[in-house]
């Protein structure tokens, strides 16, 4: 892992006498490799390593007794700070139902996450309603109805009517039936599919969600920033749900997404079961990315 590699790098260097700035570059190469292996975006890695270098030289790491441990600590702290530090809670409505919309690329875990969120909110005393707007994928509505039933949350659907219309009707239904949270599941879509991105925008405009959450698969590679930026430009995102974190992907894509869009992680998906939703811990994520 990175700690061991830096230990080796500095141990080898220290054997030759005083540690120099060139030696720092060797250490930073290891940091760069670790981040790229973890799927952090190439450009973000460049900026990040430059920041670490500045900080390390600033605190005179090279004079320290254990420069390897100091560099790891700086990297870890910088990662933690980048990943965390902003509103990670749901912004509830001050009047009328809170509307939460899930969006993202195909297969990232939106439908499953909608049910997990519904269960989470129900446990905290809310009365959520799920709304099915994926009118394309075979069995999508049935899937949401099935997981909705599994967590005891009703599902509003209107067949294959236009998604903005379904969303609007779902919000109206929520108001009439004392639901204080509306969770809107949307179809997976490519950020390069103009018609589908417009549809997402139309759903947002129809119901003005208090939260628009991007479901991001933890195993996503360099393309994560392209998709996240495009989604953020079309439907202003308020948060990310990082899914499938129970796998062994390092998850560096989240660093890139956070760095480029500024959007915070609000939840993490850690399994297929409907109770597998947890709060995000930036320091744990930093450790995971570093391997």
């Amino acid at each position, binding site marked *: 892992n990175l700690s061991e590699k830096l230990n080796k790098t500095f141990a080898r260097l220290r054997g030759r006498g005083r540690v120099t700035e060139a030696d720092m570059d060797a250490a930073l190469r290891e940091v760069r490799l670790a981040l790229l292996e973890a799927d952090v975006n190439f450009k973000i890695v460049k900026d990040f390593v430059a920041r670490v270098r500045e900080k390390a030289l600033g605190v005179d790491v090279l004079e320290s007794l254990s420069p390897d441990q100091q560099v790891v600590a700086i990297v870890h702290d910088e990662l933690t700070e980048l990943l965390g530090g902003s509103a990670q809670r749901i912004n509830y409505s001050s009047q009328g139902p809170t509307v939460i919309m899930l969006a993202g690329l195909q297969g990232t875990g939106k439908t499953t996450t909608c049910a997990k969120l519904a269960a989470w909110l129900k446990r905290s005393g809310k009365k959520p309603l799920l709304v099915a707007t994926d009118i394309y994928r*075979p069995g999508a509505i*049935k899937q949401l109805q099935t997981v909705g039933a599994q967590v005891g949350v009703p599902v509003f659907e209107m067949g294959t009517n236009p998604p903005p219309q379904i969303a609007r009707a779902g919000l109206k239904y929520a108001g009439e039936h004392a639901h204080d949270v509306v969770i809107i599941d949307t179809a997976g879509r490519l950020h390069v599919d103009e018609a589908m991105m417009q549809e997402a925008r139309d759903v947002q405009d129809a119901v003005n969600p208090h939260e628009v959450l991007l479901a991001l698969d933890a195993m996503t590679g360099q393309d994560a920033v392209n998709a996240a930026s495009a989604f953020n430009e079309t439907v202003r995102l308020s948060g990310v749900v990082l899914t499938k974190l129970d796998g062994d992907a390092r998850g560096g894509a989240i660093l890139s997404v956070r760095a480029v869009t500024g959007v915070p992680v609000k939840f993490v998906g850690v399994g297929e079961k409907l109770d597998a939703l947890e709060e995000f811990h930036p320091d744990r994520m930093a450790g995971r990315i570093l391997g």
Partner: protein
Amino acid sequence: SMSGRKLDEEMLEELEEQLVMSDVSIDTAGHLISGLREAARRGEVPTDEDAIQALQDGVASLLGSGDRPLRFAADGITVWLFVGVNGVGKTTSVGKLAHKLSQQGRKPLLAACDTFRAAAIEQLQEWGRRADAPVVAAQSGADPAAVAHDAIAAARSRGRDIVLIDTAGRLHTKSNLMNELSKIARVTERELGRAPEETLLVLDASTGQNGLTQAQSFAGSAPLTGLILTKWDGTAKGGIILSVARETGVPVKLIGVGEKADDLIAFNPQKFAEEMFS
């Protein structure tokens, strides 16, 4: 910035960056760039255009020859098994293939061996209707190996000539699920009297370095005969398949380019390499 410019170290760095941005591993990118640097020393790539062409050829040659059609049984029933982690496009790929097979005059039968996920069976049944292929399923929670066994028996008794087995998405880190997959593969092989003609790992083109781990892990549970790379209609380049090719030798056979029945094309290494640099 490319027009007869001489190949220099800065250009090599730019090309390496482009590879990494396409999810090619550092290791494989380094390997390709070293090869290019050697070619440059021998005077074989005077300009940047030569360099890009040489790199494309390097990528294509890593991926092997493009002519790997899916295999059919010489006699008896053909079986193709579809495996992979959650959400990558297994069920959709099964549906697309079933549709194509029916169009070709074959008689596919679909085995709904995802007995776990909500509405997985319904999703496959809809694809069965589109492809005009019967679907063998059991109740939710049934043993997937038993469903596979029953599907092959059903194909025989109903005169179907090819069985496509859809399995549940599973993370390779879950040993109980990987054991379940081994069992499905074993029972299938026992019922057939031979290994399935194809065991296809489905990989999402937007997957990062974890894609290699997925391939290595799944290969440990069932001998893989091919890869299907899905969602190549997005902006992700799918460069992880270069590492998978180098480390496992499993050939890419098909590429998913959309969500409709016709959106599955044969893998073409040259075209894939060109796309990586476009």
